[in-house]
């Protein structure tokens, strides 16, 4: 099985501050991977470094079989991937449909995609002409997921998607991600605070602690949850 994301010995940070130290991580094709950890441990920094928003001080990054180390983010984004940062992922002044059209030009494929996604989130079809900024916090998260799923990418990287979603939608989200993986073979990297949700959907996980991977492994069952919680407590 080939790797869609391979991070080898990466260090990175802002200004004089080093946030990540020698982090290595791989995600296989069709795998759902959960990156866990407390606040300020470097989870979002890792995503930003992988996508070129931050330059890695050392190490190498491969995405979908290509060496993207030091590549400009807009060039990285041309690969078959979808990335949703934690803040400012949507264009607030554009409508729901326009936000979707940014990744898929108008046409039959957009219509088909909107139909498919509205099966998961009916509000997308109902609110196509509404400005994204007027959606509630949770509805905006649904739009973010929809946009990521729309173009059927090979890799999705999402930063804290469950924040602000109502419990029943979080439940549904786990089903949706698994079904999309089944259908298209997409790989997904989730950065999450909601451990219960993350472990309910992921195949493997890693815990970042002060810029280093403190623990990693396969999600097997309740014992995984117990060990993850133990790690997050200290």
């Amino acid at each position, binding site marked *: 099985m080939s790797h869609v994301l391979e991070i080898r010995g990466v260090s990175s940070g*802002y200004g*004089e501050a080093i946030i990540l130290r020698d982090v290595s991580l791989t995600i296989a094709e069709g795998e759902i991977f959960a990156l866990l950890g407390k*606040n300020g441990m470097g989870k979002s920094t890792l995503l930003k470094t992988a996508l070129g928003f931050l330059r890695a001080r050392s190490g190498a990054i491969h995405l979908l079989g290509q060496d993207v180390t030091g590549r400009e983010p807009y060039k990285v984004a041309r690969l078959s991937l979808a990335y949703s940062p934690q*803040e400012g992922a949507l264009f607030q002044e554009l409508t729901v449909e326009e936000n979707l059209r940014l990744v898929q030009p108008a046409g039959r494929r957009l219509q088909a995609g909107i139909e498919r996604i509205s099966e998961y989130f009916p509000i997308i079809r109902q609110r196509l002409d509404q400005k994204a900024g007027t959606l509630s*916090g*949770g509805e905006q998260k649904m739009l973010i997921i929809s946009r990521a799923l729309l173009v059927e990418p090979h890799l999705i990287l999402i930063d804290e998607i469950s924040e602000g979603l*109502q419990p*029943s939608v979080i439940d549904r989200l786990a089903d949706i991600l698994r079904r999309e993986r089944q259908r298209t073979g997409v790989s997904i990297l989730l950065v999450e605070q909601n*451990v219960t949700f993350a472990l309910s959907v992921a195949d493997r996980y890693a815990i970042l602690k002060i810029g280093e991977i403190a623990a990693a492994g396969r999600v097997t069952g309740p014992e995984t949850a117990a060990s993850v919680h133990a790690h*997050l407590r200290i």
Partner: protein
Amino acid sequence: MAEMSVTATGSRFARNRVFWVLGLACVSLAIIGAGPFLFDTYTVNILVRSFLYAATALTVDILWGYTGILTFGQSAFFGIGAYAAALTFTHFGFSTEMALLALVAGVAVSAAVAAIVGWISFWHGASSLYVAIVTLALPIIVVQLLYTGGTFTGSSSGLVGFEAFDLSVEAWFWITGSALVVLTVGGWFLVNSDFGRVLVALRENESRCTYLGINAPRLKILLMVVAAVIAALAGYGYASYTVVVAPEIASFVFGTELVIWVALGGRGTLIGPVLGTVAIDFISAYLSGNLPYVWKLIVGIIFVVVIVALPEGFLPVITRAGRWLSGCFRHAPKIVQSGSVALSLAEPPSTVGEGAGQPAVSVKSLGKRYGSSTILDGVDFTASGSEILSIVGPNGAGKTTLMRCLSSGTERSAGTVFFYGADIGRLPPYSVTALGVGRSFQTTSLFDTLTVAECLRLARFRLQRPAFWRRDQRLVLPPAAMRVVVATALDTQLTTEARHLSHGQKRALELAMVLALEPRVLFLDEPTAGLTKQERTLIGSILVDLTRREALCVLLIEHDLEFVREISTRILVLHQGKVLLDGSVQEVVESEIVRSIYAGHVKPETGETRL
């Protein structure tokens, strides 16, 4: 975590900067003192005018560079001051009394006009473009008035040859030069004081400021009035010195030139605009004789080149080059890291426990419509002091809109809202905050270039007025805010700028800021989103503690049902803009309808989502 480690050197650095600035001021004063003996009369003559222009440019820099108020109208105030002198001296002759009268008239008229302009530009709901347009119109109006004044104002040819102060050119040079130095140093202390941080906060996120109880329109009007008075004084000096006034000095061309000089010198640096104005005016005076029309073209081209190549203006580039060369040249008045900050606890508020059992929040038939769609409809509920009322409901039910309608009187379309018996009517957010209401935001809404300590100090604005001339090294917080700050390790990052924080720490800072307001009624919109389980638990216990000990009333929007169950005294369920259920925790959690529309597979006995 190894974040920016500036704390240790910060304080010493800040003190060094004060010495640097005062030292530089003394050197400047010495140069001005020696000026008439060093330069020829023509140079001295021109520099007096340049100094007066520079003082006006300084006010543009404080308004535009620091506070973000783009103004083209400072020329109008300069003109008002100048014409106050010229008209008085022409029509009533010159005497000490008349000089004083003209001064008072110029200051009073410009202050009144600035207050009116400020009110038009900044009233609640005005967009940030208003001020640019209004200040562009103002000089045009003033010039038209001067034109229509006939022989009284001298119309287009202005007034010439009136009698004024009997002072030598050297005396004028000393007076205007030292006034400029004093003004620049005063401006430096102002923008680097705690109050200066408030100005930056207004520029970065004015709406958040109003929810921290800061009367943003009033502060901006006040600033405009002060800037107008300084410009009028400069104009008064100009008329008295040159004994020539023409409508051009009040025109929007001059107003725009001031903006250009500020941009060329380095917006937001004070010294840049001052030196830039003096240099440009001085050189142009020399060159305009030799190259009368070409000179304007040259300035225009330089401006375009600078905007494209050096968008920050000359000064930041020069200081950066200087710093790069010497490594120790550090007096540039740029945004500074506030030094080390000492945390201390505030006295408990006098209102502690007053609200226990009283109706803290009372909402009657509240409605909100956007165009044809109804977001909230007939919402009724009350909450008493020492209660944690959680508001749950599906995404899009109107929860955040409800909080918006409660924290600002201008938001709702129907209904009434009372806090401890006080009707919020149509009060703006800062007045609602003054009633003791604190609101946190769902999407992080902070001040990017302010440090953690400065953000928290901003939240204390209402309780501890910031100083105009210095920066406080202490940060006084109430116990609840202190506990959040310490528990989330924000106390180790007090000098870190907010934009460098992780998302979770931003959320924690948001919460600490609201708690620092010492509210009696607290609105929290998903306060624990993005925080870990342990941090959530801790924040839950802080909230419970606050309601028990200080009889605070908390309204909480949360999706973490387990968290809601643990700390709430009551739960309100919103669905499609209406109150679906208002009951005890037990009633709501066991309700079949809540499970079907909202919770999904949550098991009531554990509250854990299924694995």
